[in-house]
């Protein structure tokens, strides 16, 4: 009973073995003498004398993350710097990891009265699913920072509070009808 359907010549594997060693040797010398092509995509490095090493030495070199990358959360600020968030608890409800903690508060003299007094995200529990972004009715939480959660030395440091989450460019939509810009003057009694 033959154990293989290869012919005896094929089963010697001699030529393929020598060829394999040739491939390794070629890569070795190419990478030893080749210089680093600036093209970040390895597949685009085709020139002569270019080495094929695809590693990006991480802390020293970093690529920008692609546009769709779900990075660190941020609480989107309004033009006046306060969070857009209205503390509706949608994100906290949608979050499958239950890592968002919100305490609601009330502005005294603004049209939008509700705001988060505390807004905390435990980045260690977060599974980076992006459901919170989808759930938010006010476009108040986004994951467009282009960074990932930084490494921390103890667990409490991974809980990001409102102050550290509230950053990045402010956002204003034309649909923000009752905005803070038309303060509801409480009529004098």
């Amino acid at each position: 009973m033959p154990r293989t359907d290869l012919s005896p010549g094929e089963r010697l594997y001699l030529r393929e073995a020598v060829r394999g060693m040739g491939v390794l040797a070629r890569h070795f010398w190419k990478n030893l003498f080749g210089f680093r092509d600036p093209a970040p995509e390895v597949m685009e490095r085709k020139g002569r004398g270019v080495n094929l090493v695809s590693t990006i030495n991480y802390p020293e070199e970093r690529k920008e993350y692609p546009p769709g990358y779900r990075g660190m959360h941020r609480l989107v600020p309004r033009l006046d710097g306060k969070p857009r968030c209205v503390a509706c608890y949608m994100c906290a409800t949608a979050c499958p990891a239950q890592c968002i903690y919100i305490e609601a508060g009330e502005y005294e003299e603004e049209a939008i009265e509700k705001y988060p007094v505390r807004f905390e995200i435990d980045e260690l529990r977060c599974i980076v699913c992006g459901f919170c972004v989808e759930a938010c009715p006010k476009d108040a939480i986004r994951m467009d920072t282009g960074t990932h959660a930084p490494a921390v030395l103890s667990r409490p440091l991974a809980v990001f509070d409102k102050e550290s989450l509230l950053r990045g460019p402010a956002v204003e939509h034309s649909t923000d009808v009752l905005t803070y810009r038309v303060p509801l003057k409480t009529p004098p009694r």
Partner: protein
Amino acid sequence: MIETPTARLAFEDFGPAIPPRPAFGRWLAGTIAGWTAFVAFLLFISWLLLAIAALFARLGPIGAAVGNIVGLILILVMVTATLLTMADRKWSALMQDRVGPNRARLSIIPGLRNRPLKGIPHVLADVLKMLFKEDFIPEGAMNNKVLFNLAPLLAFAPAFMLFAIVPVSPEVTFLGQRIQLQVARVDWGILYVFALASLAVFATALAGWTSDNKLALLGGLRASAQLISYEVTLGLTLVGAFIAFGTLRLEEMARLQGMLGPALRSAVVLAARAGDFLVRDDSVLFGWLPSWGFVYQPIGMILFLVAAQAEIKRAPFDTPEGESEIIGYFLEYSGLKSGLFLIAEYAETVVVAGIVTTIFLGGYHLPFIEPTVVRHFDFAWLSVFQVFAFIVKMLFIIWVMFVVRWAFPRFRYDQIMRLGWKMMLPISLFNVALTAGIFLWAGREGLAWMGGIEWLAIIAFVALSARAPRAEEAPHASH
């Protein structure tokens, strides 16, 4: 740099993002400087080895031996073996388009802050780690503590003793002393290698047995079987070389592959009288081929390399270790003892490369230019260049062995046995008979012709052997 708002956020968190930079100029300067420094370093080491030997030789014959032990075994083999632990990882990285280990840094030294230094600090880090690991002895090994501790030593010691008979330079007058870079000049020459190499079996068998661990025992058994089977081939492959050179002594073999001393001297005198710049190398075969061992013994060389690879248990013959299935016979060892096993493997690589260089690659001989070097420098300088040549050839053989190690998948145990007993042993026997017959019939000249024809045959055989079916045409590979 920072264009988009998100890039600014990333900058706040992690500092500037530095994409891979075009570095042609830096690369060119670095490459030229680096290789110049490397060659200069090797030349310096060559000079240093000779100088150490000459210095110790003032103390008499014992001193000369001690000098050679210090120079060759402690410096050449030990340092090369240590660096090979790194080279193995770095070279494999280059072959696989990776960077290789480069995170250990000598940041405490001001100039070397944040410089990977080609990964060499990793050697230091590894040694430190092994030194401070717990020296653990499993409970089952407690009864056999002596044997358990003996095994790494038995693996380590022969590997280093083996280099004693490898001649790194010819006999030469250096700094006023008559020296030769060879620890022991003994009549039984290469037999010493076979004798000591088989000691490695005890190490693996003892380690496997006393560890009281099934997998270690398996590794030890596999190692014993493999080492004993391949020792036969290892010996037989070199018989052809014995016939070709008519001696067992490695220094004689090395000497015979270039011009002999007196012939060299007279050729140089004649050339000086005639005012020639180049001096003809009389040892060259057919006018262009260095008369090195690989010309006489192609089959012997290839089989010896394969058998040696099996003998030192490196991939593809690493079933005794087989990291991914059984950890190997040194499974229960920790700390420095495990380190001894590992470094012994690399030391054996160095030794095998040294022996192959000596027998098949002309030893310390430079091709073609030896008499010319003597004519323009002198014999002392020639010996420096010769030691340099030896080291370069040795490094080349080591590199070839590493390419083999990374190119082939691990053989199955039965495949190893079949290759050893059913293919390599008959071929090496055939080689012995053929070499002996041709030598009786036509002498060394005939052997050179035979070697040439054999090389052509080998190349033709490889080129004409069927290539494996490609994936798209293979009938069974597509579903």
